[in-house]
Structure formats: C-alpha cells, structure tokens
C-alpha cells in the first residue's frame, strides 16, 4: 500500500470516494514526470487521470482551469469578471513586461479565475487561484475579482467556494496590493454577516497576504495534503530566528495539529466533500 494513502486512511464512506487509481496503459513514448515524493517517473496521462496526484499520494500543483474542470459539475461553470485586469498603478520598473510575459506563458489574464457554477448540484460562486500566474500573487485585479465574487454572492444569497494558492500580495503593485487584503476581507465579512457560507480549500502554497486575509476567513477551512500554508516564508523565519524549523513546519498537517484547518482533504475526495458541505449549509437534503 502506498505510504501516503495509508496516512490519509479514509475516516468514513464519503472520504473513500473515487480513490481507485485509473488503470491507464502508458504509451512507451509518453512524456513522464518524476514524483518528488516517491521519485518514480509517472506518465502524464496517469497523473492527469488521478486529478494530478501520484499513486503515492503526492499532490502536484494544478492549474486553475484543471481544478475548475475537476471540482464543478460538468458544463456548469460560467466565468465572471474576466474583463478585470491589472494595470500598473505604480509604474513599477519592469512590471508591464512581466505581465505580458506571464500572460503569454500561462494563457491567463490574471492570477484568479472566478465564476458561478454548481458543485454536486448546489449553485455557488467559485474562485480558483492560478499558480502559473506570478504564483497566484494578489494585485488589484485579483483583489477586485475576489471582492466582486463575494459581493455578487452576497447579493444573490449564494455560498462561496475558494481554492487558494498564492505567494502573497503582489509587490509590483505596492500599497494597492496591500489594500486588497482589507478590501477582500471587507467583502468576506459582509457575505458572512449575511449568514452565507464560505468554504476555502488551501492548496500549495498559500502564504503571506492571502493567508492573512480571505484564505483564513472561511467558515470551513480544508487543506490539501502536504500543502505549505503560512504567513511568513519558512526561509525568512529561518534566517530571522537562526533556528532550525521543525519537520513538517507550515504543512497542512501542522495547520490541522495547531487548530487552523478543519480537515485535510485529498483531491480525490474533495468533490464529494465540498458537495456535501454545500448541501448541508444550503438547505439540501442528505443523499
């Protein structure tokens, strides 16, 4: 039995959902990726068929579009607020070119994708951050898209599901990025005060200004196995304190142990769990 599978032994029937490893026969010439955990080379098609995880339990990073495909009900996702893009409010040296390069390379306009969808039949607003766009850093467009997502959800009485991945606030937008922490938090608070449900799934890595704002403000906080989640970067802490960091520092398991996440949820059981929690908070019957 793969080691991590053993560690994340399902606690109930629900968590067992869809755990079978897809038996895809690899073509001999197919490109492979080496798993950083078990060091085995795995054909890309098999990684994809297992929602970007290795059979040892390692979770590879996932693009926002991939995640949307895997978490939403087929054909239900409608992207919103995509017209909102970052400008260059400070005239920061090299930022415009950087944005152009990243847009071309990632095929995305910004570091978060928002929209409405159904998950397990429950209508909700969804935001998914994009690791391939400046590591999900939060500038004005990310803050604005997330704020609009919450404002729209508040207006329509919808729950919000958010997948976070971020290096923190985007320094090229300086104070305007910093202010997004307050802006998004304000929108989350209004949504919460309206009695609406907000669920976050913290994925690798979620740090800095995103951890210190909407990532940690969920009613329920789930984390992917092995995800690094924290405020200050581990390297910075090590340099500042000159102490060796404990094993597993700032990992999802560390968060759970210290009481900052409700559960660690492997990708294969995320859809069924998110579906159930949405139903439970939005008047749906148990099925």
């Amino acid at each position, binding site marked *: 039995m793969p080691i991590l599978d053993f560690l994340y032994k399902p606690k109930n029937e629900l968590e067992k959902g869809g755990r079978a490893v897809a038996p895809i026969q690899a073509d001999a010439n197919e490109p492979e990726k080496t798993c950083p955990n078990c060091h085995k080379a795995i054909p890309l098609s098999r990684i994809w068929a297992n929602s970007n995880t290795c059979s040892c339990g390692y979770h590879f990073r996932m693009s926002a579009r991939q995640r949307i495909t895997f978490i939403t009900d087929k054909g239900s996702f409608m992207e919103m607020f995509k017209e909102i893009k970052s400008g260059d409010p400070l005239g920061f040296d090299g930022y415009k070119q950087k944005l152009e390069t990243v847009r071309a390379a990632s095929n995305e306009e910004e570091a978060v994708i928002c929209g409405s969808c159904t998950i397990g039949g429950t209508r909700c607003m969804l935001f998914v951050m994009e690791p391939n766009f400046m590591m999900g850093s939060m500038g004005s467009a990310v803050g604005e898209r997330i704020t609009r997502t919450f404002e729209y959800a508040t207006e329509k009485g919808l729950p919000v599901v958010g997948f976070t991945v971020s290096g923190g606030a985007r320094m090229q937008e*300086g104070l305007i990025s910093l202010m997004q922490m307050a802006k998004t938090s*304000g929108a989350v608070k209004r949504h919460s005060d309206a009695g609406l449900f907000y669920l976050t799934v913290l994925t690798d890595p979620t740090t800095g200004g995103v951890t210190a704002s909407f990532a940690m*403000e969920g009613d329920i906080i789930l984390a992917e196995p092995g995800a690094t989640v924290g405020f200050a970067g581990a390297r910075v802490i090590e340099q*500042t304190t000159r102490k060796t960091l404990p094993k597993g520092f700032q990992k999802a398991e560390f968060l759970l142990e210290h009481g900052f996440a409700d559960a660690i949820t492997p990708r294969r059981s995320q859809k069924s769990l998110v579906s159930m929690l949405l139903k439970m908070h939005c008047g749906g019957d148990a099925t």
Partner: protein
Amino acid sequence: MSGNAYDIVKKARSSGRYTGIDFIKGIFNHFFELHGDRRFADDSAVIGGVAYLENMPVTVIAIEKGHNARERMQRLFGAPNPEGYRKALRLMKQAEKFARPVICFVDTSGAYCGIGAEERGQGLAIAENLCEMMTLKTPVISILIGEGGSGGALALSVADRVYMLENAVYSVISPEGCASILWKDSSKAADAAECLKLTAKDALRLGVIEDIISEDNMEQPEFFNGIKDMLINDIRRLGSIPTEAMLDERYNRFRAFGRSE
C-alpha cells in the same frame, strides 16, 4: 523628488524617533494600560488601554518599538505576535461595547516572523482584525508614525481615517525584501524603495491616507496638540453621522483601491 525614498525609510526606522508611548503621553490623559489577549499571552510589542482625549474616553492602541536596546529586545522591535493583534482586537471590541472611539499608532517592520507566531496563527490573527475592524461600530483612526510594514501594519489600520507622519513609510514589503526577491540583491534596497512608492506623499497620492502630519515642530508642544485637535475634529465628524453610514464609508474607502468599472 526622486532619490530620497530610502532616506525616508532610514528616518522612519531611526532610533531617536518618537515611539508609540511618546504619542500616548503627548496626546492623552490618564492612560491606563490593559494587558493580555485573554487567549494565550500579553504581547509587549502592542500597548493598549483606555485614556481621555481632552474629556472624551477613548481606546488607544500602539505598536511599541522601545527606546533603548533593552526595551527593544523586550518589545521584539515592535514586531507583534498573534497575541498582539488579538489583544488589539479585544480592546477594539471593548471600545465598541462602550461606544469609545479607537485610535491606533502604527510602527512596525512587520508582524513577528517566528516559529511560535506561525504555530499560533499569525495569518489568521491579521485576517480577523481586517474583518472585524471593517465592521467595528465605533470610529477608528490610525496614524502611521514610523514604519508601516505590510499586513502587520494593516492589521491596525483598517480605519475611517488614516494618517502618516511626514517621514513614516507604508509598504507591502520592505525595500530589502523586495530587492532580494526581484533582483536577488538586497543591497539594491534604495532602488526598491523608489519603486515601491512607500512615502507619505506617495500614499497620499494613491489615496491610501487622508493627510500627512508635518514633523516640523516635533520638539514643540504644538506637535502633539495639533494631532489632538485633528483627532477631536475627526471623532466629532464621525460621531455626527449614523453608524451604518460610517461603516459604508469605511467599506467604500477600502473598496475603492484598484476598483475597475
């Protein structure tokens, strides 16, 4: 005006500068310090308590760096742990209960960066302050008196009115940190300081603060008296509008940053 942002950073950090305690002593009467977050500990990087502003009871919260080496060590150079933010939030909720305005003095290089801080949820502590301050049903005024370091400073600056001293700075990241990430060279901090637009003038231009407090007469009693008058005027104005309208104004104040129509 270019070329002097880093000089201002140095002034903002200089050890001879007034710290939070000096502002409390200079502006308020009968300050009584309240300790502890009622959860885990008392963080000495954050001072909070009740005081009179003229004859009006207020809640005062200040990040305190300390005046000498010993004090600075004891106060962790003004870098709050989660307990500091939780104490501040406790005092703010108390202020709301007793309808006292809240005045914050902010001076930090950032939230404390350490193993314990992460174990006790530094990110969550800041996030909670951002949420709760946005809807706190009493006027909140924040003054950045020295360093305004990132989320650690913002966690006491979600206010109806935000001011900066002339030589204070407010930034998403330290110039050194920015230079080492962008150019792998922390010695280019001066260039990064220019790029980051972190001076009071920049913050005013970006609409992040309402006004700049001049440091011209810092040694004279007029300096603190000027701030006192400004606070009294603001509180009077904020007190004259209905709470819901004040909260909408506060929400919209932050809602406006990076808004695209």
